[in-house]
């Protein structure tokens, strides 16, 4: 018995943490894509944090700063036209929505292990991606004044 354990133990494969190179060689099922996008959306929000705080600051501080906040998206700011800043906000909208909805999926999976199956993972990952894109389109249309 102990001999069998010893021989099987020798053959056990070793798994290391992922690195940048394995990102290319790994298969990317839809749950991985949703997970990867969760990371990317989080990183986007990390790097855009100063701009998000700028928006928060100017939108709440005073009537005058509120006008300055609005002007950035209409007349432009820092030599860039307004629609460029609107595109940045569209990126923030997508990243926030994806991070939020994918986060709810993770919280659900963490608290409901009995629901976690391969199919559940695939279906909810697809739901996260599609729902995020749909809401981004709806809010983006509003942002660009289409309705």
């Amino acid at each position, binding site marked *: 018995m102990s001999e069998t354990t010893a021989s099987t133990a020798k053959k056990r494969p070793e798994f290391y943490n992922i690195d940048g190179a394995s990102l290319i060689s790994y298969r990317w099922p839809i749950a991985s894509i949703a997970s990867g996008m969760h990371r990317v959306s989080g990183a986007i929000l990390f790097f855009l*944090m100063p701009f998000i705080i700028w928006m928060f600051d100017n*939108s709440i501080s005073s009537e005058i700063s509120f006008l300055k906040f609005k002007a950035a998206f209409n007349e432009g700011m820092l030599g860039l036209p307004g629609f460029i800043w609107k595109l940045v906000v569209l990126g923030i909208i997508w990243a926030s929505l994806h991070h939020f909805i994918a986060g709810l999926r993770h919280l659900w999976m963490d608290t409901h292990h009995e629901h976690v199956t391969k199919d559940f993972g695939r279906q909810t990952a697809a739901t996260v991606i599609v729902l995020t894109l749909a809401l981004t389109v709806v809010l983006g249309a509003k942002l660009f004044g289409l309705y």
Partner: protein
Amino acid sequence: MSVNFGSHRLVVGAHYGMRDWLSQRVTAVIMALFTVLVLAQLIFSKGPIGYELWAGIFSPQWMKSLTFLVILSLLYHVWVGMRNIFQDYVKPYGVRFVMHVFAIAWLVACTGGAIEALWRL
């Protein structure tokens, strides 16, 4: 693989155990509830969203305290998230260390800016 636990543990290595993992979830729940609270006030408002309405959401003292809590939650949540990303993709420990320092500096500066904006209201 070289020994990187016990007395040989890495400065930029994993924080073993539940703490960071659970903190990230708890802070996520705090931020999610806050988001719903703010969005609900926008959705159930009438007419265009002007300065009065928007700033009015954040001006009550209890809302300022809550927003303060959310800013601190964000700080810790993002730190854990960025640390995870660096640990997975940045293998040279020196580079990773520099990036950890950068992330902390970036986040502390952002947190200061956000609290300043909130307190000024």
